[in-house]
């Protein structure tokens, strides 16, 4: 099973060769018992289940209709109670600060006046929305749903790699992976006391209810999707189904006298809250991109008038801009007067001349990222790059220093992963999901993404990444409580 397993970077399972960390010991033993053939069989069952349920995503830049399942790796990733406690506190702190930052940027701008964050960086961010200046949102909450990407460095330290404050996706995979794991590996669960994740959609629903326009006791909530060809359509549909609300497309909604309505078989019916899975730019062709076919004309007007709630709020992209990212620890100190619990990855900014020359001299060892791209697009990993790519990025950086950042290439932690009939180490990250309603809640777990090609550091599904179920463990292993048997069945 582990015969060909090699240690490198921080290994999640093994403390040293052949010696599992304490919380992994039971899993390690169970995997050896199962053996490769049985694992292979169950892996196939899991794959088939996902495919039949249509848990697929669409790959961009190819023929339309190329549907793929995200490869699912059956070896769960475990997070001990102590590790999780720190992550949870760190995420709450970070999201609270990011939210205060967004509010500040669109109102008093203290942080800019005090020169903690350079004003031109903020106003130059592609996610900055002038339309939001002075706009009040319910409870001053902007980032209702966020996904914060964490990695572990060589010392096992959790670091924030990037913040996703607009429309982070992946939560449906967390919930689905758990369901599939329970079907395929029921016995494994009995050995661990895993914290459940299923109440995510209930909490999300409560968050959405809380942003209904004032005086609206029983709000009509919808999930707004770009449509069935969007790569995350499955997730949009899944969330709507789990919350018991309607999934709508832009063409299903219409503005009438300042209110948003949906077109139903019985005429127009009012909509109070929209969980939108469409970027700001495409939300309203009157306010933003006039060529958008996905949005609703006049939506922003209705939002301004307070007639409809939007989650996430407009303009949150200013906080997850990679040019702003280096300043998040400063935001935490500025707004909360606390030290950051979770650190950032060291980041170089070409806008600073010393940084720029450092970047240009060390392209081979750095990761360069475009500040407004995501999903593994628009980046260059130095050690894996070609000479031509480095030349290209050097030109781009020099021409547009605001547009890029660079970070040392961090060897993400590795985890046993089932590849070609045996277990081998593959690099992983973790995207926990944070909900911000009356308070901040962090779903225990998150999406563990795994870079399947050997040695690869890119975990994005669009670039050949897979996923794992993530088990956050309770302090103690628990025993299930027995349920009293019901009486016998009637018979003749």
């Amino acid at each position, binding site marked *: 099973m582990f015969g060909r397993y090699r240690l490198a970077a921080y290994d999640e399972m093994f403390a040293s060769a052949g010696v599992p960390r304490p919380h992994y010991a039971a899993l390690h033993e169970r995997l050896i018992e199962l053996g490769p053939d049985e694992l292979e069989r169950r892996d196939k069952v899991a794959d088939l289940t996902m*495919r*039949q*349920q*249509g848990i697929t995503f669409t790959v961009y830049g190819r023929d339309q209709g190329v549907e793929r399942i995200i490869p699912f790796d059956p070896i769960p990733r475990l997070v001990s109670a102590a590790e999780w406690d720190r992550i949870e506190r760190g995420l709450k702190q970070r999201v609270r600060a990011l939210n205060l930052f967004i509010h500040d940027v669109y109102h008093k701008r203290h942080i800019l006046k005090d020169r903690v964050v350079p004003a031109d960086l903020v106003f130059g961010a592609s996610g900055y929305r002038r339309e939001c200046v002075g706009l009040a949102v319910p409870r001053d909450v902007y980032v209702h749903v966020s996904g914060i990407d964490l990695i572990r460095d060589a010392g096992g330290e959790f670091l924030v790699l990037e913040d996703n404050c607009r429309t982070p996706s992946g939560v449906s995979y967390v919930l689905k992976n758990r369901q599939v794991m329970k079907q395929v590996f029921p016995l494994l669960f009995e050995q661990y006391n895993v914290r459940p994740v299923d109440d995510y959609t209930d909490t999300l629903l409560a968050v959405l209810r809380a942003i209904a326009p004032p005086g609206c006791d029983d709000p009509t909530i919808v999930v707004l999707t770009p449509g*069935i060809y969007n790569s995350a*359509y499955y997730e949009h*549909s899944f969330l*709507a*189904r789990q919350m018991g609300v*309607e*999934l*709508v*497309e832009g*063409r*299903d909604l219409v503005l009438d006298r300042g209110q948003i309505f*949906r*077109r*139903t*078989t019985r*005429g*127009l019916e009012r909509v109070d809250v929209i969980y939108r899975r469409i970027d700001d730019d495409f939300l309203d062709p009157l306010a933003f991109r006039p060529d958008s076919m996905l949005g609703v004309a006049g939506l922003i007007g209705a939002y301004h008038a307070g007639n409809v709630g939007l989650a996430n709020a407009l303009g949150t992209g200013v906080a997850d801009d990679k040019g702003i990212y280096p300043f998040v620890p400063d935001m935490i100190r500025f707004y909360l007067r606390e030290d950051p619990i979770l650190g950032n990855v060291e980041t170089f900014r070409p806008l600073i001349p010393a940084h720029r020359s450092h970047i240009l001299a060390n392209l081979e060892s750095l990761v360069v990222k475009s500040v407004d791209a995501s999903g593994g697009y628009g980046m260059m990993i130095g050690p894996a790059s070609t000479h031509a790519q480095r030349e290209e990025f050097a030109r781009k950086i020099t021409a547009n220093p605001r547009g890029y950042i660079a970070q040392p290439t961090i060897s993400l932690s590795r985890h046993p992963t089932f590849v070609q009939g045996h277990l081998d180490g593959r690099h992983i990250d973790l995207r926990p999901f944070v909900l911000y309603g009356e308070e901040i809640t962090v779903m225990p777990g998150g999406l563990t993404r795994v870079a399947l090609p050997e040695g690869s550091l890119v975990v994005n599904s669009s670039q050949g990444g897979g996923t794992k179920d993530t088990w956050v463990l309770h302090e103690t292993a628990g025993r299930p409580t027995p349920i009293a048997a019901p009486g016998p069945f009637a018979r003749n």
Partner: protein
Amino acid sequence: MLSRVAENLYWMSRYLERAENVARLLDIGLYLELDAPSLSVEDGSAPVEIALEILGCREPFQAARSTRERSAVLDFLTFDRSNPQSILSMIARARENARGAQESLGVDAWIEVNRLYLYLCGPRAQKRYRSSPSSFYTRIKQSCILFDGLLHNTLPRDEVYHFVQLGRYLERVDVMGRILHAKCLALTQGTADADLALQIVRWTGLLRSCSAYAAFLRVERDRVEPVGVIRFLVLNPDFPRAIRFCVARCRESLQEIAGGDDDEYASEAERLLGRLDGELRYIDVGEIFERGLVPFLDGVKATSYKVGEEIKHSFFLT
């Protein structure tokens, strides 16, 4: 409910119903041709080839294929994606529609239609089709029936359910009309006694392609002859594939959706269906033959088309 979702459900249901009917037609067609090779006549009314007529795609077939061989017809109507009436094309469209209405359908029903589509695209379907067409078509029919059963046993009787029903039964009225129309010409021609055995094979085939043979025998208790068959397939109030039965179900669902009742209709579609329902209730089979079976069926077809248009305007284009 959302107009778009209602439209998705309605069309999903229509495509699945049509695909199931095509599978049954081809399956029975093959069976008949094997049973009585003399039915494989050259005038295009052979049991398999006539499916082209029923689906209105004889011309596209001739344009696409240079042969009239049975295997070409079967392939054209089963796997050819360029033919919108092929089983694969229809299942693909049913699936796209179902995907847009997943939240209403429920996971299990969605999985079933998705699974059927993935099966048809994959190598196992081709293999089964080559080794035993009959078992292949049976697999498709079973999947459609399973889907139907899932909806029946899981959906609340609300708008979602009724749009599904409306699509299914309106499609069935249309398909039944087409099948009878295409086959009755060959079936009602006067025949010499020598051909009688063959005619009975044909009439039996017609009943079988509507899954109606066993029920017919129980209800009509007669030998298989045109008047009884038409009476059964058009006017029977209890048989789920009889036109009268389907029209009544369409009307019921429409009433549930739009809020009309027996005293008053709430939409033009309901009025049209009510009138047809009344006619089917009180017409006598003799009167159908007096009027001419073909003009009668044309009338049914025209009504079902108009009803479809009215449904579109009343519920989908809001």
